[in-house]
């Protein structure tokens, strides 16, 4: 088979070329229709997952101090490996909806306060036990306990009671929350036997792979769990391996050299080079993470909305996106939500760089003298450059910005959320409500813009309890507009996840929730035979 025909038939299988076009191209190459048709069916076979073999990922974000306990899971490597061995109640689907995993169904009382999850019957843990509603409740209990230091503690704080009855887990909330099912999709909430209360680091759950290698900071391995409850759908390779490669150059070299099949965190500045490597595909997904400039709304001079508006208008978002992220992202609009969230309204006017309007607002604010902006390399990749670009665009509007470069050590404890004007990052949350309640209500621990508006808090609570999606969407739109015009948040851009897959890797499905197909690349993909 000629290379071109091979390529074309695969393009059809992937849906990039129509069948009719393929037959036309094949005829042009002098191939009979019958033979061309047979080619097509063999390519279609190639598109069904190939079972077996070993799939390897080289990932950034693993340290020798990591443990398997999902509650303490904060780094990328543990996040990805957790998806291999762990099973959740729900998983975030690529379109932003929820996919039922251990929870077969979920329903709520009309006031959205009592939620009942039906637990799937045929799911088995790696140690041979069957997953029960008791295990689910025990898992939630462990994560809701302060002592577990779970990163999911915050999202479970709204729970009043939880109990297992038969094959159902019944959760009662202190306040109505229509987003409760989304909270249950948090990646920390890996269901473990007896909730992991006996040994949280055992690495036993009901995921597609059993943990075989656990060398923190070096490598992790799993072998296919024969009794995985949906074995045909996920976990195609017989074995998976994650190699921790924190150095970006080493990571790309390992992909090029074929030691790994996929990598995460391709740096924007080398994406164009990586694209030219034969066999390598750059995989991008627009995410919910953003890199804000935070102003304290209750601290002078930022307590003046004219000044905040001047600073927002003086931001050249397009230039920022082009120079800092090399275009791998989307411009922000000074509120923390973008189209990757469910219930996003895309008709809110985009704020653009307007030095004249900025100068006018600045004059109106009556402020004079320079404004101190704090930045650091750890705020986000390119944060120091971003501050300098911003300094230049502000100068065009007659606003003087003084940049203070802070040491990375202690930036999160001494500068972020402490100083009135600084750069930061937010990874985004599963729902709009989670994002707003984490950082933009009066009493939030991480209210890093000191945005304290009782009427806004009320809107957040009202939207949370609203089960009618049309009404909720309208509420979120109103909130976004208020944030955009009065908030202390300056969002130049949302970032994209940039990963890359190597030769023969199939089955990749971009997911806006997180990098590497929401951490599921190893269980979704397979190697072409």
């Amino acid at each position: 088979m000629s290379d071109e025909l091979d390529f074309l038939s695969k393009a059809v299988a992937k849906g990039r070329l129509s069948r009719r076009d393929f037959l036309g191209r094949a005829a042009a190459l002098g191939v009979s229709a019958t033979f061309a048709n047979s080619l097509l069916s063999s390519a279609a076979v190639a598109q069904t997952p190939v079972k077996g073999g070993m799939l390897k990922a080289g990932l950034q974000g693993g340290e020798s101090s990591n443990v398997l306990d999902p509650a303490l899971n904060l780094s990328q490597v543990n996040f990805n490996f957790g998806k291999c061995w762990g099973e959740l109640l729900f998983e975030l689907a690529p379109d932003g909806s929820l996919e039922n995993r251990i929870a077969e169904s979920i329903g709520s009382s009309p006031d959205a306060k009592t939620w009942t999850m039906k637990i799937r019957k045929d799911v088995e843990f790696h140690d041979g036990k069957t997953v029960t509603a008791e295990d689910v409740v025990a898992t939630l209990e462990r994560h809701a306990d302060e002592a577990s230091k779970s990163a999911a503690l915050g999202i479970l704080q709204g729970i009043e009671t939880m109990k297992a009855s038969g094959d159902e887990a019944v959760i009662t909330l202190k306040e109505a929350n229509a987003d409760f099912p989304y909270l249950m999709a948090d990646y920390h909430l890996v269901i473990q036997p007896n909730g992991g209360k006996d040994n949280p680091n055992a690495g036993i759950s009901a995921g597609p792979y059993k943990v075989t290698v656990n060398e923190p900071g070096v490598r992790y391995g799993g072998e296919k769990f024969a009794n995985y409850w949906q074995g045909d759908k996920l976990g195609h390779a017989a074995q998976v391996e994650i190699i921790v490669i924190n150095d970006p150059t080493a990571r790309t070299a390992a992909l090029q050299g074929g030691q790994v099949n996929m990598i995460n965190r391709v740096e924007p500045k080398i994406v164009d080079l990586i694209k030219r490597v034969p066999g390598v595909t750059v995989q991008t997904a627009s995410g919910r993470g953003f890199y804000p400039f935070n102003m304290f709304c209750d601290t002078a001079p930022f307590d003046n909305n004219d000044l905040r508006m001047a600073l927002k208008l003086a931001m050249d978002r397009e230039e920022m996106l082009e120079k800092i992220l090399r275009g791998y992202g989307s411009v922000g609009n000074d509120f923390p939500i973008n189209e990757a969230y469910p219930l996003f309204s895309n008709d809110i006017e985009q704020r653009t760089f307007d030095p004249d309007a900025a100068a006018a607002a600045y004059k109106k604010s009556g402020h004079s003298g320079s404004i101190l902006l704090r930045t650091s390399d750890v705020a986000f990749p390119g944060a120091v450059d971003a501050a300098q670009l911003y300094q230049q665009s502000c100068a065009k509007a007659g606003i003087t910005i003084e940049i203070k470069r802070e040491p990375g050590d202690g930036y999160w404890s001494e500068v972020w959320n402490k100083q009135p004007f600084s750069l930061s990052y937010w990874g985004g949350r599963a729902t709009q409500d989670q994002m707003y309640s984490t950082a933009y209500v009066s009493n939030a621990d991480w209210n890093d813009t000191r945005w304290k508006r009782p009427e806004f808090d009320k809107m957040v609570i009202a939207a949370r309890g609203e089960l009618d999606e049309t009404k909720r969407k309208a509420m979120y739109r109103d909130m976004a507009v208020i944030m955009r015009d009065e908030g202390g948040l300056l969002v130049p851009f949302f970032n994209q996840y940039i990963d890359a897959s190597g030769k023969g890797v199939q089955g990749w499905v971009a997911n806006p929730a997180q990098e590497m197909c929401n951490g599921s690349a190893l269980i979704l993909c397979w190697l072409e035979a």
Partner: protein
Amino acid sequence: MSNPILKLIVQRIALGIVLLFAVSVLIFVGTQVLPGDVAQSILGQSATPQSLANLREQLGLNDPAYMRYFRWLGGLLTGDLGNALTSGLPIAPAISGRLANTLFLAATAAIVAVPLAILLGLLAVRYRNGPIDKAISAFALASTSFPEFFIGYLLVYFFAVKWQIFPAISTVFDGMSFLERLQAVALPATALTLVVLAHMMRMTRAAILNVMQSAYIETAELKGLRPLDVIRKHAFPNAIAPVVNVVMLNLAYLVVGVVVVEVIFVYPGMGQYLVDHVTKRDVPVVQAVGLIFAAVYIILNIVADIAAIVANPRLRHPK
């Protein structure tokens, strides 16, 4: 062997132990004055005052520093390195695997680098000031002048990406055969060899040239020995002390100073382990690794001292 040598050796070892204690205090003080604290670093951006207080309490960070030091020293003397603060797992087993990896890489590099450096040094002296001498020096100095990450990436580019002879990443693990391990460390060992070669080669050359000025060398030449024999039999034995010194210095570097090479080749050695834990303020691990590095350094220096003593005939045959 007579008393003065034995006495000197015992002296050196005792001095080494005293030094090790001093270093342990220094390491402890150093880790105490770093800004921030462990609890803050573990929780990062997501720290709340309550969770910080809980974690500090749990990790025993509220005790005074001297109590923590003596608790640790006591454990150390009974062979217990303690538990890592971040993961709660015992340090000793985690370190032993890493240490073995580091020593394996250092040994592989040393087995190539040391004989090569000395041989090149001898050749440089034999053909001193000629084209061979110049070529050897130019090559060695050039390879040393490049930073090790540059050499590392260059090796990766050609041997791993272009020609695909060796793997780009050197992950080693239990269950690998010796040959597989050798193949895995081929590139990092080469990079390290190139980095340490020049220092040893130049010192060998200089030390031997120094001896070559002596009258007895002239005698040896006049009685008609071949030039290489003169160097090998008469000059080199008298130049051993400085050469051993510089070799030991470089061996110590191969063990304690290879963080950059470890990162580039993703080699699971001690350096990366130390860096990971320094960023998390995991004091017990930093102290344990620091002490092991100090011990390696001190032991190698003692060996160098002893070799120098033994190589010195005046000390070997006291009047």
